[in-house]
């Protein structure tokens, strides 16, 4: 473990914390442009967080301690996840403690706390949102695991940095098996981050919400942590996508400061492209009926399994 590895590790987490709101701001900007609207500022999410951190927190009288700690757990899980995803470098000291499967588990734990907190106060909307979130979760997690298994088979490891290193060292271009699982991954990303067509992050209609319904009872710093956590989740998912399918530009091995200097702009370019792509998907699709979500995530699982089969059959 060199000092540079630790610097990379800290840098990754700091960049994730700092850039996650900007990614959301960028997606919102692209969405507005695609709808022929004038876009909100890129810095709006930062201002919202700043505003929320300075407000007085109001908590329901019958809230249990779980309700209070959930925002910290969710936020903490997302920061930790940012530490094990190789977004800029692959030599991360923290990685030895968790592989890709543990990462999926970490995200699931955050979901668990979020849904429990949503039901804690006992409002109809929170329970409604929690129920829907669990439905999305239990369908999305197997698909995500299957996507990771394809990449693991390709690179004979379940550790994300090892996968990234293997893929980055290989030839340019996606193997057919990984191409299928990339499609599956995009579907999972949309579902897990409450994006259209699964959920509508911009809606004011309580009855249609999934993620928003769960955080309705939160205010001030708790809400800020939940929102920041959600922004980090989107950032993390996009970075998992890069690690699995677009590992170029990531500093592999002991490259040194130059590698990191390449990795940062590379990440920025990739994030900008991914954000624009996400906005495009959201603009051209409508929100689907809740009952269609199992079909949607079933398709994701199917694509992931196809990726696996293609890899096994073609050996590619």
């Amino acid at each position: 473990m060199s000092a540079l590895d630790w610097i990379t590790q800290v840098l990754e987490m700091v960049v994730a914390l700092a850039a996650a709101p900007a990614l959301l701001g960028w997606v919102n900007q692209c969405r507005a442009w695609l709808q022929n609207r004038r876009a909100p500022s890129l810095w709006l999410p930062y201002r919202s967080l700043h505003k929320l951190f300075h407000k007085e927190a109001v908590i329901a009288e019958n809230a249990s301690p779980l309700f209070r700690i959930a925002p910290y757990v969710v936020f903490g899980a997302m920061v930790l996840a940012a530490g094990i995803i190789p977004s800029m470098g692959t030599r991360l000291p923290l990685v030895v403690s968790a592989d890709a499967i543990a990462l999926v588990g970490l995200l699931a734990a955050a979901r668990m706390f979020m849904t429990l907190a949503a039901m804690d106060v006992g409002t109809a909307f929170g329970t409604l949102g929690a129920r829907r979130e669990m439905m999305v979760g239990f369908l999305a997690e197997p698909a995500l695991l299957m996507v990771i298994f394809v990449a693991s088979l390709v690179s004979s490891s379940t550790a994300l940095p090892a996968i990234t290193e293997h893929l980055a060292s290989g030839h340019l271009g996606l193997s057919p098996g990984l191409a299928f699982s990339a499609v599956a991954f995009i579907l999972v990303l949309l579902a897990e981050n409450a994006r259209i067509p699964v959920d509508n992050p911009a809606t004011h209609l309580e009855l249609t919400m999934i993620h928003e319904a769960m955080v309705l009872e939160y205010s001030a710093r708790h809400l800020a942590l939940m929102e920041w956590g959600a922004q980090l989740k989107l950032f993390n998912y996009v970075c998992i996508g890069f690690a699995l399918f677009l590992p170029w530009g990531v500093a592999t091995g002991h490259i040194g400061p130059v590698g990191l200097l390449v990795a940062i702009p590379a990440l920025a370019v990739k994030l900008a492209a991914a954000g624009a792509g996400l906005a495009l998907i959201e603009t051209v699709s409508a929100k689907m009926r809740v009952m269609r979500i199992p079909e949607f995530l079933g398709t994701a699982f199917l694509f992931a399994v196809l990726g696996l089969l293609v890899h096994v059959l073609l050996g590619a």
Partner: protein
Amino acid sequence: MPLRRWWEHAQKIAGASSVRGLGVGAEHWLQVASDVADAGGLLHTLWVNREPAGDAAVYGAYLTELGVLVAELALPAGGESVYYPGLEDIFPAASRLQRAAFDLSGVRSGDPDRRPWLNHDRPYEFVRVDGEGVHEIGVGPVHAGTIEPGHFRFSVVGEKVLRLEEHLGYVHKGLEQRFTQLPILQGHRLASRVSGDSAIAFSWAYCQALEGMSGRALPPRAAWLRAVCLELERLANHLGDLGALGNDAGFAFGLAQFSRLKEDLLRAVSAAFGRRYLFDIVVPGGVAVDVSSQAARALAEVVRTVCAEIIELRGIYDEHEGVRDRFTGAGCLAPELAARLGVLGLAGRASGQARDARVDLPCAPYTELAVAKIVQQGGDVAARVAVRFEEAQESGRLLRRLLAALPEGEHAVTVDAPAADAFGVGLIEGWRGPVLVALQAGPAGSIRRCHPHDPSWQNWPALEYAILGNIVPDFPLINKSFNLSYSGVDL
């Protein structure tokens, strides 16, 4: 006795083109209602008039193929012990009207449902649904969006709705009483605010009744300009709804585009009439603002471009797989059920109820316009969207025709206050459906009684049926496809 016989016995009432009134005894009150129902008519509105002395009268206004028939049942003084036979078995829409009339006047119908409607002082008992896994979701009266207040109580299993019960009345303003405090020549201003999105429809219906009572004929130019305003109101509301429906289906592109078109239209309206929304344009005797021929041409040009763009956007809505999937089959109100519930206006026409007062009981200038009646049989959100798209085009056609050939002459004449106790009824097809205003003059230019009726009275109960069997998250979309007025029914 068939309806025609009642009609022949009835006396002509001033105001809309074909209105007659009939005094009936208690023994004939239900008979008239069932004869109207047998002839395919429906109850439009019901109100109670209670004099300070204590004697009262209940009025039922029926929409029939012959015209509007107003039945009047005089009730003796006697306070709470006075009952009149309820019409709820013949016309389900009567139930809420009767309960509201009791809250306002203290005169009760025989309806066994005695829960208050407008009066929120007494507790309200919702109907409970029992069974394994059934739970209740209460939504409102305050909602997350900036909309009017109303409470919705869902009984659900999982996501499926077993029952919806509405509880309205949160914006009760005492409108009917306020009318009686205004001079009759000023009442149009309050009428245009009964439900702000139907400002022209209500104020025109009010003025129609008033002008009929005063015996003052409307100059042709005034009538044409009123029709221009009414169609602009229809077009603007349809544009707003079409955008909002796209947005509620998660298709924000639709909202952005339709909002832009609506804004273009409102700016053109503002250039022609000096105000974006058409409050206080319709005044007794005509319209408050005349439109120059130049402004009329400019407005017609904007309407033409807007309508051309609507056709393009309709193509996008129709071909978008996700939007089509959300619209088709959601919130289905079968034509038979719509007929039973007496659903009015746009929502009725989307469920096969071919009624449009502009065609059935036209006033000038609609007598010359040959308005196309737009009817769909589907009864789902897609049908209500289709009716809006086609009505927007039809309004565009009417507007271009009206604006191209505005008759010369005065745009307003003076109207004198009608004699005391004169009675008139105005009926105008607003964008949501037929709006009725019943007006009775008091002494010295005052208002004795004014009852405005919004078609939402009939259509709110229909929403409770349209949602059945649908899933909870589809409710906002279904609700928006009806887009009913809270203010108009909370009075």
